[in-house]
């Protein structure tokens, strides 16, 4: 057979799919790390089933990991896969849609036996590998299970253990396909199994078997090379969104010298923030897994009252429970960061899927006039700066702050240029000073030029004072039922939040001219897809610009001016239209929504298509 061709590619998307038990996430993670270390730009998107271990072999049990890597800058995990790796029939069934026309399928044929076909609910006698389903794709079948077992037949390990390493075969094979070295993964295996040397050996053996299989099997005509990306010089690491959020919070606490206190309750997809934070006790981080979300936030408020940096994390249904306490934090005027890793709703909804439908809940989900700043992260690494910035605003403006991320970026990962602690922006913390008896009375609600009241913590001499949820006097903070005072307080709480606009950057364009036919106005995790789409449209010569809003409340001061310079404003959101309502209301522009509510992120082409429709 012919020689193996070596094709150079700018970017490649691989989608690994298999049973929850197949080690798909680990495989994807390893390939990601290796690609990153080689200097590719990367973007990943894991996709979990809702069940812990849904019955093996079924569509419900399929776990996926999509990885986009390239020698060019990337902002999404890829619209469609170039290569789809499937460990069983169910994985093929549920992921074939995501494969590019003409793409490569690598199928573990052991996963297409009668039993697996039945579990995947193919009709009797039908096998997608040979019934024409895959016409137009390049199929490569391997009996991964068999080869793995053969590789390890001398190892003395049980079948169960042996079978568990079959993901290494796939990984080795893909390393071969994409001209990668094995050392990073070998190092990883050595560390992971340091206490079980027999597993180091066996896994490396299978990894190599996969690699050599590429060399010897003659079925694959091409290998591919993806050169290092031409990205800014510097030191990089790979980071997941939830991890970035956790690190951002810790960084803010370290930078300010405040102890971090996180009061929370587990919920998908936010739990990992707790898991990360709870590891860093030596940073003075205290995490409390409370009895419920209400206790979590109330504990965080209690800690903030005591002078800690109070944090609470959750997802939609848990945030719903916090509404009353958020109102209290609002009237207490105390620092607090509320992280909502959004997921599909309403109600329990789609716990493992992504969505942006909790913006209104953040803005309005409690009784009375209770304005709260809202910041949204735009990508896995941006979770760091968004979290850090949320802390800054909470502390400097004495207010609860909402940080919105979502399942997509929380579990996704991308390279992140390592930042030095000294390069982090300053955050000003000032506790109220002790007071002697002869000093004038302490006024806990007297405001500074930012309309911010003092943070007076227990243990400070002479500042004993009481705060509560009843309306309070404008300066003393004592309970006040006075009608004029109430209106004044409602207005000043609003003014305090509005004033933050003076302390955040003006809205910049991400791409395009500062006037034109279409402005794509996005927020949150749609960033990558919209950015990529804008690039395509501009390259096509369209007069399209892109602005991405990070500060959802208060809005950047120049935003109204900015949006009015375009003929049309298109607002992609993974919800039924929320931020668009704010823009329409505030600026009276007839913005057009582009809404996707499928528990999945936008793909670039959906955005390109919409813009072209509007332009037509």
């Amino acid at each position: 057979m012919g020689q193996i061709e070596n094709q150079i590619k700018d970017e490649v998307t691989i989608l690994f799919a298999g049973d929850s038990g197949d080690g798909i996430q680990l495989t994807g993670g390893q390939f990601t790390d290796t690609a990153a270390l080689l200097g590719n730009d990367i973007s990943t998107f894991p996709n979990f089933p809702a069940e812990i271990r849904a019955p093996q072999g079924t569509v419900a049990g399929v776990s996926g990991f999509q990885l986009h890597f390239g020698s060019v800058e990337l902002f999404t995990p890829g619209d469609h896969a170039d290569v789809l790796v499937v460990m069983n029939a169910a994985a093929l069934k549920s992921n074939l849609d995501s494969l590019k026309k003409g793409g490569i399928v690598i199928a573990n044929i052991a996963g297409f036996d009668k039993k697996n076909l039945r579990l995947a609910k193919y009709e009797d006698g039908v096998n997608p590998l040979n019934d024409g389903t895959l016409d137009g794709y390049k199929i490569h079948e391997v009996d991964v299970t068999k080869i793995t077992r053969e590789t390890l037949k001398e190892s003395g390990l049980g079948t169960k253990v042996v079978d568990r390493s079959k993901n290494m075969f796939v990984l080795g094979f893909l390393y071969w396909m994409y001209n990668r070295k094995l050392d990073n993964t070998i190092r990883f295996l050595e560390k992971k199994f340091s206490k079980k040397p027999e597993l180091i050996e066996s896994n490396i053996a299978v990894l190599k078997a996969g690699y050599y299989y590429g060399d010897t099997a003659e079925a694959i005509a091409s290998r591919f090379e993806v050169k290092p990306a031409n990205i800014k010089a510097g030191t990089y690491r790979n980071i997941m969104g939830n991890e970035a959020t956790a690190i951002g919070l810790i960084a803010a606490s370290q930078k300010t010298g405040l102890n971090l206190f996180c009061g929370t309750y587990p919920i998908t997809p936010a739990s990992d923030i707790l898991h990360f934070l709870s590891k860093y006790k030596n940073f003075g981080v205290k995490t409390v897994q409370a009895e419920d979300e209400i206790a979590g936030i109330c504990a965080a408020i209690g800690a903030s009252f005591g002078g800690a940096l109070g944090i609470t994390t959750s997802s939609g249904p848990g945030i719903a429970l916090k509404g009353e306490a958020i109102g209290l934090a609002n009237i207490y005027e105390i620092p607090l960061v509320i992280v909502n890793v959004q997921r599909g709703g309403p109600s329990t909804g789609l716990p493992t899927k992504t969505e942006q439908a909790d913006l209104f809940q953040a803005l309005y989900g409690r009784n009375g006039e209770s304005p709260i700043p809202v910041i949204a992260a735009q990508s896995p690494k941006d979770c760091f700066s968004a979290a850090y910035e949320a802390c800054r605003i909470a502390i400097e403006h004495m207010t609860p702050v909402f940080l919105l991320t979502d399942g997509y970026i929380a579990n996704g990962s991308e390279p992140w240029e390592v930042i030095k602690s000294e390069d982090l922006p300053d955050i000003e913390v000032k506790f109220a000073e002790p007071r002697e008896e002869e000093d004038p009375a302490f006024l806990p609600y007297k405001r500074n030029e930012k309309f911010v009241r003092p943070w007076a913590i227990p243990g400070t001499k002479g500042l004993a004072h009481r705060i509560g949820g009843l309306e309070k006097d404008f300066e003393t903070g004592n309970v006040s039922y006075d009608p004029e005072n109430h209106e004044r307080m409602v207005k000043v709480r609003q003014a305090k939040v509005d004033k933050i606009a003076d302390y955040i950057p003006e809205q910049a364009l991400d791409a395009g001219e500062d006037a034109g036919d279409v402005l794509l106005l996005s927020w949150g995790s749609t960033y990558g897809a919209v950015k990529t789409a804008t690039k395509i449209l501009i390259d096509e010569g369209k007069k399209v610009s892109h602005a991405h809003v990070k500060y959802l409340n208060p809005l950047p001061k120049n935003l109204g001016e900015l949006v009015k310079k375009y003929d049309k404003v298109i607002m992609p959101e993974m919800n039924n239209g929320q931020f668009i309502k704010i823009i329409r209301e505030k600026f009276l522009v007839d913005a057009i929504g582009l809404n996707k509510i499928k528990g999945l992120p936008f793909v670039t082409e959906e955005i390109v298509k919409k813009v072209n429709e509007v332009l037509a």
Partner: protein
Amino acid sequence: MPEVKEKKITAKDYASDQDVKWCPGCGDYSILKQVQSVCAELALKKDETVFISGIGCSSRFPYYMDTYGMHSIHGRGPAFVMGLKTARPELNVWMITGDGDSMSIGGNHFIHLLRRNVDVNVLLFNNQIYGLTKGQYSPTSEKGKVTKSTPYGSIDHPFNPLSLAMGAEATFVARTMDRDPKHMRPILIEGEKHRGTSLIEIYQNCNIFNDGAFFPFTEKATKADNTIFIEHGKALVFGAEGEKAIVLDGFTPKVVSISDIAEADLWIHDKYDRVKASILTRFFDDPREEGALPRPFGIFYQENRSVYEEGVTAQVERHIEEKGSPNLDTLLEGPNTWTIK
């Protein structure tokens, strides 16, 4: 050299400048007075003391103390306490709650506080009614109670707060009453000394919506026969002349005449005995019923168990010892980096 004597601190020093706004005659006044006076007796530092409450008449309490304070939201007091104490274990924290606040909406936080054993003094003002919302029944109201929300009598079997607390792993369980300040003071002091959650139930008269709920226990004419004051190491005797005693017949408590039994057969109260304390919390008869057991007042149970926030702090400290002081740059860098030139 003569010692410079500090001005002696008095109860008044703990009173804030706010007008106390409970109804005239409310039992809350007496509790406020005792707490302020105990604060003075123990010379608690005002700047290091925090009173935290939920919502209810009783929960207005922090406004009247010249210490730090949080009047929070209904039923959630224990969570604020847990957060504050975990962040600042050195503070002296008191929690004020009502029977609605702690037994109804806040029941879960209440039992979790007890099991975690956060070091806080919990004063549960039990008036068997919702005062602030003007008179609905509460989870401690007796069955059949006619209130605004139960015009034909309530149907729910009430909680026995101390029994619930025993089931929820409480380490200090006591009861006292608004109308017996002499009894209340030492209980408050013992509670303050206890390391862990000190639960002190205080029978409190709401003279507007549930006047007289505890009169059988608090009023002179009936008090002696309906109450028993329990003290560690002392026999369970009661009655105007101490003429009655409680003994156990198997596991069943019985009232006997003191003259009828030998001293050796007396039940000596042991606050460290969980089983006996549990039996005592079950002395919960309606005093108007024939043969009712007297209602106990005093410290039922005490246990020495590790305190939640100390555990948290110890873990932090141990971790620092093991891993060394935090280095933010290392954290930012993570375990794996690569460099692009």
